[in-house]
């Protein structure tokens, strides 16, 4: 086993195990923490694949931003110590069947497919390239999506404020 393989197995195992814990843990704050682990080891995968920029985003935006947001809202809406109610058994079984069938189908189909093998080994993606791509307006340039996402974030912000702000009365 190469180092890469070992690293992959560790990350992968953390991802899968903590994902399961996230969706089964009965203490909501713990679930959020498990989610954080999952997100961090995903960042680890990105590092491994030498997408450092992406891994940084993953850590700051996802792990840093969203999880913190989630934890805030947990604190706002739940009693921290309380255990979550268990879902009904039939609901669990149905959900398990759906998810397992889906996973089996997808994995089976993926394994059936012969992905082309490329041997091009590209090195680290430099921040420079990313910056260029992000502002380029040509093909493989991402200026337009960048603008659109800014509208989206703005709209989401306005929307969140409208919904969440307290009524004056």
């Amino acid at each position, binding site marked *: *086993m*190469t180092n*890469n*393989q070992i690293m*992959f197995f560790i990350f992968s195992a953390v*991802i*899968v195990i903590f*994902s*399961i814990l*996230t*969706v*089964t843990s009965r203490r*909501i704050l713990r*679930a*959020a923490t498990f*989610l954080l682990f*999952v*997100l961090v080891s*995903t960042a680890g*995968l990105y590092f491994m*694949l030498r*997408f450092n920029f*992406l891994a940084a*985003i993953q850590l700051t935006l*996802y792990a840093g931003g*969203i999880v913190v*947001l*989630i934890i805030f*809202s*947990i604190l706002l*809406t739940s009693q921290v110590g309380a255990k*979550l109610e268990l*879902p009904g058994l039939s609901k*669990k079984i*149905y*959900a*398990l069947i*759906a*998810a397992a069938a*889906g*996973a089996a189908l997808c*994995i089976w189909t993926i*394994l059936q497919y012969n*992905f*082309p093998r*490329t041997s*091009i080994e*590209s090195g680290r993606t430099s921040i420079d*390239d*990313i910056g260029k*791509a992000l502002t380029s307006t040509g093909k*493989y340039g991402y200026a337009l999506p960048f603008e659109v*996402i800014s509208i*989206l*974030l703005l*709209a*989401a912000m306005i929307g*969140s404020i409208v*919904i*969440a702000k307290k009524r004056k009365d």
Partner: protein
Amino acid sequence: MFEGVPLNWFLITATLMFFIGIYGFLVRKNLITMLMSLELILNSVNINFVAFNKLLYPQHLEGMFFTVFIIAVAAAEASVAIAIIINIYRRLVNIDVENMNEMKN
């Protein structure tokens, strides 16, 4: 093949994560835990994109940028979802998804 790690391993990990997320979405009663499941789902898709990009099509950065934008969208989605959840909490003092069935049939 990325230095000994086949593509399929990435894909299988991602797929498992995806359907674990789906399972969580289907059974968790608390809206915030459902939101966490959603994050799992989106995250797994990101792994797919990134792995494809690096292992199969490294000439361009399409998969990576897709991932970047998915993360941004996820943030927006999460903020709106949380705003709505807080609003619900103010109305019902409870964020159990099973209570939300005033409209049916």
